[in-house]
């Protein structure tokens, strides 16, 4: 093989490093056999390099390609979708290594490597993943640089230095492109992550759902308030409204299940200053958003449903940022339509008879719906109900009866569900609301971090004249939960995050760890709000602010202008690089002097020393003998004699020399020159 086409050993080692670095962030998502393929590919290529094995024949390659595709199909059940496609790409990447014999193969492999770096972002845009990608890009670039260093027969760590320098030089352009380059809408849609679990609240709720969600220490969303953060007991993040009970499962009304006339939320009169805040949600693969009480949002892609929920038209596949205004005292749905009254009082025809009986009994004992609410809450408070993460399973029919009269152990959804059931039994419109309650205030950047374990369910009751009023039966059982959060409430039981013994949240009492966790969270917030949240709208805002408008011309001008701004200095510095150092000031002055002499026809030859040139010049222009000798003497003194360290005398000498050169403006006396030259 042509030696030009060989892959240098240094490059090969860097390619090996790239191979494993690139697959590392994907490893947890891939079937194990793909990782085995990576090891086989590495060993095979290494043995080829050592001359022990040979490159695979074409039939072997075909067989490997087919079996890899088949393996992906068997592992995922399909070849379409994000995970199978990425897995296929990664497997192909490993297989390509085995047949890497020439430089052009290495190019293909490395360019594919850049592409693989990008695929990580389809799954997560976390700051750590981004940092890892920077490392990976550096590694791939290093391998690319190594490929251009023929004759490197040893592994050379210095290559990464060169690659890093090159990437650092690209940073200004990267920033410009990030801020200025037009962000097109998706040209094609990425296949849905069919294999990624939906996280957070689901669209229906049965007893035990919220309790199991509360086992997770993951972050659900982060909130930044514009003003003061309200007390925790006010932080009821509404996400889902469950109006329908069917076989012990609460679910919301679908968009098309609501009659046309009811689909738009009714007008809500708002007064006073709203509570303004912005929320960055972690991806959930679901489409509901969260807000406090009555919430409105101007952010694009945030809609409001007839039960005053916020939702996004599409599932949240990546971090999503939106800003919200909430009016905590506004009353929603002051009058209730017949359809809605019917929907919000509807119960299954059968079951839970004891509960219905109890509700009717309690209602008849009081004069108003509000007193009825208080009566039930008082019952929850007085009777020995236990708020627990381990309520024990309920089974069969009449689950609410079981909970209320037998087990009396429940998590928030049990209480909310029983409460709403009793309300509806007495004909009072009520519904279950699910979302999160409370949150952790990060003192570093004053954000509220809402974790999955803050998941909560409560109730809303419609009261004549007040609209929908929030009632939290859990508060009657365990006030600690509302005031202090789940961890305090579960302290006696010790069940907080019992399933995640290593979660950083469990070490909140270690000050250093807690501080690190909160700092990291603050960085994540910043990252999400500045980088991940920098979408088309924000870009438009930014450009609008700085350039007063957005047009194609402005885009093009900024883009080209900044490229020129970056590239021209680089070009100039490269152009001037042949000089070991810049021309000194005295040399500059002397060259000015030489330029003036050249105009008179006396050009200094390159090899002519100042002294020799002066001799020649004096011979040609005896009129200027004095000036010529003075300038030459001064130049020689500055350029060649030892100057004492004071610097002052140097500056003075340079000043005198500069003045002498400036004063020296020889007139063009052709006669004089011609005469002397000819003689």
């Amino acid at each position, binding site marked *: 093989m042509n030696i030009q086409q060989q892959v240098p050993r240094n490059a090969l080692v860097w390619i090996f490093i790239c191979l494993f670095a690139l697959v590392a962030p994907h490893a947890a998502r891939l079937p194990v056999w793909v990782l085995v393929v990576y090891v086989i590919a590495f060993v095979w290529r290494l043995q080829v390099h050592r001359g022990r094995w040979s490159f695979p024949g074409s039939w072997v390659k075909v067989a490997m390609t087919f079996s890899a595709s088949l393996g992906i199909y068997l592992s995922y059940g399909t070849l379409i979708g994000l995970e199978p496609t990425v897995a296929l790409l990664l497997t192909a990447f490993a297989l390509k290594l085995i047949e890497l014999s020439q430089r052009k193969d290495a190019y293909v492999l490395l360019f594919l490597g850049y592409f693989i770096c990008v695929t990580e972002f389809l799954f997560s845009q976390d700051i750590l993943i981004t940092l890892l990608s920077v490392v990976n890009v550096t590694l791939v670039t290093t391998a690319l640089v190594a490929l251009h260093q023929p004759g490197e027969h040893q592994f050379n760590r210095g290559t990464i230095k060169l690659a890093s320098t090159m990437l650092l030089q690209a940073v200004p352009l990267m920033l410009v492109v990030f801020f200025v380059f037009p962000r097109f809408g998706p040209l094609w849609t990425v296949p849905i992550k069919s294999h990624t679990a939906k996280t957070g609240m689901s669209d229906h709720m049965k007893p035990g759902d919220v309790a199991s969600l509360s086992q997770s220490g993951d972050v659900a969303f982060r909130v930044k308030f514009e003003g003061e953060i309200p007390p925790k007991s006010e932080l009821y993040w509404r996400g889902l409204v469950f109006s329908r009970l069917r076989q012990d499962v609460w679910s919301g009304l679908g968009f098309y299940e609501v009659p046309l006339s009811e689909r738009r939320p009714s007008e809500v009169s708002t007064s006073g200053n709203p509570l303004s805040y912005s929320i960055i949600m972690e991806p959930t693969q679901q489409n509901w958003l969260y807000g406090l009480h009555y919430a409105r949002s101007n952010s694009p892609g945030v809609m409001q449903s007839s039960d005053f929920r916020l939702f996004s038209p599409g599932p949240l596949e990546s971090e999503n940022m939106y800003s919200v205004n909430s009016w905590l005292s506004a009353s929603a749905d002051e009058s209730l339509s017949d359809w809605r009254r019917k929907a919000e009082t509807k119960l299954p025809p059968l079951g839970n008879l004891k509960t219905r009986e109890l509700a009717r009994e309690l209602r008849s004992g009081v004069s108003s719906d509000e007193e009825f609410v208080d009566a039930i809450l008082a019952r929850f408070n007085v009777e020995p109900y236990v708020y627990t993460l381990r309520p024990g399973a309920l089974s069969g029919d009449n689950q609410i009866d079981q909970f209320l009269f037998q087990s009396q152990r429940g998590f928030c959804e049990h209480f909310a569900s029983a409460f709403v059931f009793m309300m509806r039994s007495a004909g009072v419109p009520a519904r279950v609301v699910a979302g999160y309650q409370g949150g952790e205030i990060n003192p570093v950047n004053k954000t509220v971090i809402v974790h999955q374990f803050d998941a909560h369910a409560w109730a809303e009751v419609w009261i004549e004249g007040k609209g929908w009023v929030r009632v939290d039966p859990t508060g009657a059982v365990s006030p600690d939960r509302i005031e202090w959060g789940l961890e305090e409430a579960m302290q006696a039981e010790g069940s907080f995050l019992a399933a995640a013994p290593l979660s950083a949240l469990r070490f909140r009492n270690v000050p250093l760890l807690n501080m690190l966790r909160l700092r990291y969270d603050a960085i994540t917030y910043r990252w999400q709000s500045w980088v991940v949240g920098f979408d088309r709208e924000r870009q438009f805002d930014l450009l609008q602010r700085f350039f007063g408008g957005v047009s194609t011309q402005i885009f093009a001008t900024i883009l080209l202008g900044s490229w020129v701004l970056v590239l021209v200095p680089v070009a100039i510095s490269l152009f001037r690089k042949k*000089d*070991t150092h810049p*021309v*000194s000031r005295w*040399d500059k002055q*002397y*060259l000015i002097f*030489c330029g003036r002499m050249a105009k008179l026809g006396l050009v200094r*030859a*390159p*090899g*002519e*020393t*100042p*002294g*020799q040139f002066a001799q020649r010049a004096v011979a040609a222009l005896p009129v200027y003998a004095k000036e010529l000798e003075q300038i030459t003497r001064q130049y*020689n003194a500055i*350029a*060649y*004699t*030892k100057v004492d360290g004071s610097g002052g005398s140097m500056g003075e000498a340079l000043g005198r020399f500069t003045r002498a050169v400036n004063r020296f403006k020889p007139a063009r006396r052709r006669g004089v020159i011609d005469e002397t030259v000819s003689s």
Partner: protein
Amino acid sequence: MQLQGVIDSAVKEVGGILLGKEPQIRLALCCLFARGHLLIEDLPGMGKTTLSHALAAVLGLSWKRVQFTSDLLPADILGVSVYDAKDGSFSFHPGPIFTQLLLADEINRTTPRTQSALLEAMAEGQVTVEGETRSLPAPFFVIATQNPVSQSGTYPLPESQLDRFLMRLELGYPHPRAEREMFERRHSGALAINNPQQRITLEQLEIIRTAVSKVHASENLLDYLQRLVAFTRQSPEFEVGLSPRGALALLDCAKTWAAMHNRTHVVPEDVQMVLPAVASHRLVPSGDYAGDGNALVDLLQRKVDVIGS
């Protein structure tokens, strides 16, 4: 300054024998002041040996002369141990190299073996004979003469050995006026028996050397020096450029030249003055370049800009 006077009188003393060769005499002195060995190359009968003798006499050094021939052996120069029958032991009989100034006449007439024995001693200032290392006296100079390489019966010195000579001088034919004077002196009988007197003592030599070490080479000058050196390594006319040793030699000689002319700093003229003597024997023209080392030096002088731009 008296230094100048001492040097001038030495030059005059030598010039009294070798007529009309003042620049070469000054360069030869410069070479010795810079602790370098001198190679004088020219056709037979141009005054090479005369110059060497005169320099030795003017410096007042003990000197010995070896005429190199094709059958000369290393031991003939370095010395040999001889069995002494009286005490029944070997005693070392030092060769002519144990002197302050060695005149190696027609060095390229002898075999490479003997040449290298001499050159080794020049480089190290000591000789090793029969396993015993003996120091040479200080100062130790070698003034070698050689015929042009094209002459028959010569063993040309390789580049690596030429490099050990700080300077190579060519004397050339005398100026007609000087030649005329030479004729007249011979006629009057004044030339042949003119023995030059010592003009520079060892102490004065040390003073000169101290002065040299104090000469300042400015940034501008070092830039020029670097441009010169870089040019020899980049231009296509050069097969072999100046080695770092060559570059250092150039700087040393320029400093010495400046000190000899009573200056405490080097100017480009100093470099240009010593350049032919220092560089011409170290430069090798590339195959398709017609000129020799001297032409290359001329090229350097003309092409390399004294002032950076």
